């Protein structure tokens, strides 16, 4: 008998389909693994079940009865508990308050029954006694905990719901071995109780250790459900990738430049910092070096560290033979380093200001410009914008009047007025449309052919396979594999990304 069934559930955000068609069936007493690459719709599916995202269509059945889940509160009442990937904790509340937050025990109708709350929280805190690490206590404020300890609190919170259906969306990403073992031990107990468990992880060894069945989800569509005992990792990865997985990167998207004998544009030697360690590589002039792997394995952290945007790091960086260790982004820009982030709102756009002001800040910095005439600035800004095929009404229109793709073009154009030596691209195509992407990569290839060294991190594997000369696969903060030439296949990329660290 099935605890939970989803039939054709879908969700769209504006024009983007986050979930095209979700079909899922969870049996009592099983751990059901969801697998799919970045942005395939796993988290959307989980949030729909947990009520925090409302589906556009489809049907949800619990214990074979059709139900409507109107919000997280109603999901909870219908017996669904969830671990959120991005966590749902209150940083200024204690561990025990967080664990019990959804159902604080009360006395006299309005007062928190602190004794009952302590007893309730202790039951779940004790489950992890011995592995929860230094400084972990029921009264500690969650904001004072380490990342792994916070993740444990979110696990305890999900367990405290005592829900018959439990969802764990990447619960193990920050946990150490002992913590994962303890968690799996608890999960096995829940299985024996007949709970239905949805489990998401990117680590193949964990999936085979705990999972019973796996459902593969690709491009927002659930593809297939398999028994894990009757399949092997290679089959699973092939299904995630789709039919074209074994083919090398197609001919039309061959690397921009075949030979680059001009020397190294940038050398990075044993770079370590928050979120990555011992990263070494060399980018030749004219080369596009891809950084691949699952999201958040240290790729962005490395790029930001090179650009001088993170505080602590060790190792050596050289640009064109000179020692380069930028103390701040301002410093990095002066020395010929450029950085484009996919997070335009945070790192790029000067919101509400005209396009011309958004194109020229780097020029001001590099030329130490104090006073400028609009006409001469315009003469410098226009070629850069035209190189990107940017569509805009006039230079004086606010940048917010442009679409996301055109905004990103403006951001990139600002680096083109004074050419840098090294271009760092940190998932630059996040949330922009296909034609803008095509323009962007055409330009990136042209820049490479002019001799720039380019570092490209993309969460979309097709972009890496189609544009990078070499791909460094990141896993757990360090480079685990390098793919060159014929090895640059979708299959190899997935395999390297999903290997246990």
């Amino acid at each position: 008998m099935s605890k939970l069934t989803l039939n054709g559930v879908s969700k769209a955000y504006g024009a983007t389909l986050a979930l095209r068609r979700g079909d899922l069936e969870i049996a009592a007493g099983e751990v059901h693994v969801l697998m799919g690459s970045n942005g395939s719709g796993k988290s959307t599916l989980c949030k729909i079940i947990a009520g925090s995202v409302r589906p556009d269509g489809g049907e949800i059945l619990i214990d074979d009865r059709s139900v409507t889940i109107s919000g997280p509160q109603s999901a909870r009442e219908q017996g669904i508990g969830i671990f959120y990937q991005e966590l749902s904790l209150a940083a200024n509340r204690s561990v025990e308050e967080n664990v019990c937050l959804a159902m604080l025990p009360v006395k006299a109708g309005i007062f928190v029954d602190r004794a009952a709350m302590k007893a309730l929280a202790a039951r779940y805190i004790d489950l992890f006694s011995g592995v929860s690490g230094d400084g972990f206590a029921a009264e500690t404020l969650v904001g004072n905990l380490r990342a792994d300890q916070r993740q444990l609190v979110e696990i305890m919170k999900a367990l405290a719901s005592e829900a018959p259906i439990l969802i764990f969306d990447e619960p193990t990403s920050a946990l150490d071995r002992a913590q994962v073992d303890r968690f799996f031990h608890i999960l096995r107990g829940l299985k024996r109780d007949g709970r239905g468990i949805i489990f998401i992880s990117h680590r193949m060894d964990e999936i085979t250790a705990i999972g019973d069945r796996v459902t593969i989800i690709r491009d927002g569509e659930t593809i297939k459900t398999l028994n894990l005992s009757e399949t092997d990792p290679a089959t699973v990865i092939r299904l995630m990738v789709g039919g074209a997985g074994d083919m090398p990167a197609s001919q039309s998207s061959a690397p921009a430049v075949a030979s680059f004998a001009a020397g190294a544009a940038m050398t990075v030697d044993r770079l370590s910092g928050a979120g990555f360690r011992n990263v070494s590589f060399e980018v030749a002039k004219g080369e596009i070096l891809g950084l691949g792997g699952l999201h958040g394995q240290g790729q962005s952290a490395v790029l930001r560290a090179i650009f001088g945007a993170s505080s602590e790091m060790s190792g050596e960086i050289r640009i064109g033979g000179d020692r380069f260790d930028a103390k701040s982004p301002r410093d990095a820009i002066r020395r010929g380093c450029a950085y484009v982030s996919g997070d335009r709102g945070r790192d790029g756009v000067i919101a509400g200001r005209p396009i011309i002001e958004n194109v020229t800040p780097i020029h001001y910095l590099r030329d130490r410009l104090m006073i400028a005439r609009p006409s001469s600035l315009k003469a410098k800004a226009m070629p850069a914008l035209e190189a990107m095929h940017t569509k805009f009404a006039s230079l004086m229109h606010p940048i917010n009047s442009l679409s996301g793709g055109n905004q990103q073009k403006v951001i990139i154009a600002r680096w083109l007025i004074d050419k840098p030596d090294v271009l760092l691209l940190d998932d630059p195509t996040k949330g922009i449309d296909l034609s803008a992407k095509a323009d962007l990569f055409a330009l990136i290839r042209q820049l490479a052919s002019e001799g720039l060294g380019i570092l490209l991190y993309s969460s979309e594997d097709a972009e890496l396979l189609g544009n990078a000369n070499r791909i460094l696969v990141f896993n757990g903060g360090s480079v685990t594999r390098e793919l060159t030439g014929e090895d640059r296949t979708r299959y190899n990329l997935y395999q390297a990304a999903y290997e246990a660290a």
Partner: protein
Amino acid sequence: MTPTTIETPSARPGGLKLWLERYPFLPALIIVVALLALNGAFSPNSLSYRSLTGLLSTYMALIMLAIAQTYVVSAGDIDLSAGATLSLVNVAIVVLMEKWGGGAGAVIGAMICGILLGLACGVINGIVVAALRLQAIVATFATSIFFTGVALYVMPVAGTPAPALFWRTYGGRLLGLPFVFYVLAALALLLFLLSRTRLVTQLLAVGDDQQAAYQTGLPVVLVRIKGYALCGLFSALAAFCLTGDTASGDPLVGSKMTLYSVAAVVLGGSALAGGWTTVVGSLFGALTIGLVNSLVFFMGTPSEWQNFVQGLAILLVLMAGVLAGRRARA
């Protein structure tokens, strides 16, 4: 290099940080003590029992209003209509007490009406901000104009006196102790009880991270509305104290108090972004403002310079509090 060296754990806070976490109002308390000492230095008489009682009864209204503000700030909201609510309740109870004859029954009846009126104003704010999702600053600014309009309708001109029974009780003594001490004791008890309620924990969780609270399954909209209702309730209590102190009705009396109440919340050590607040700190914050004002007076500042010195002093106190807090938490 091992992962443990990359992530330096700050799980065990230092002694001072632990103290601040448990008693976030400590910097505000120290500032109040320092200001009292300064007041005493300029005018020893200002530390007498009599003048301290006077200070308390004058600033009790601001203390109540700052506490009212604290509950909405807890949830990450703000209420710029707290002062207008105070004015409205002030004129309403004065008019009702006069109409009903000014006896004990009239006073109690009017106070019950005042509390209901304050709650109603709070609920209106809550619905406008939380349910209709309007920007808290602008929406409560708009309701403040609306409430002021109603207050002006109830009492177009300031000056109607409150019945003698009311202000004589507030300014008088009971069993040998000033009445305002009983008010303070009752307030302390009320704050203690409130701090134990589920609502306050939920308000703080909402202020900490509204999305997380929603995903946890908390009724976020309802919690925020209740926060505003609590603010309305305390605004009404503030109006009672003010009426007891001024002994008359004034439809515009509270308008300049609103931002003082916000300042008191911050001076007390609460985070304006929500999730981290202290009502006791707000009490000290309000006293800080009162003591700064009296200090400016005792220093013999020429009247045309009083605003200037007052503003400068509050700025200095704010800087001292922020620096102390930052050093301790680092």
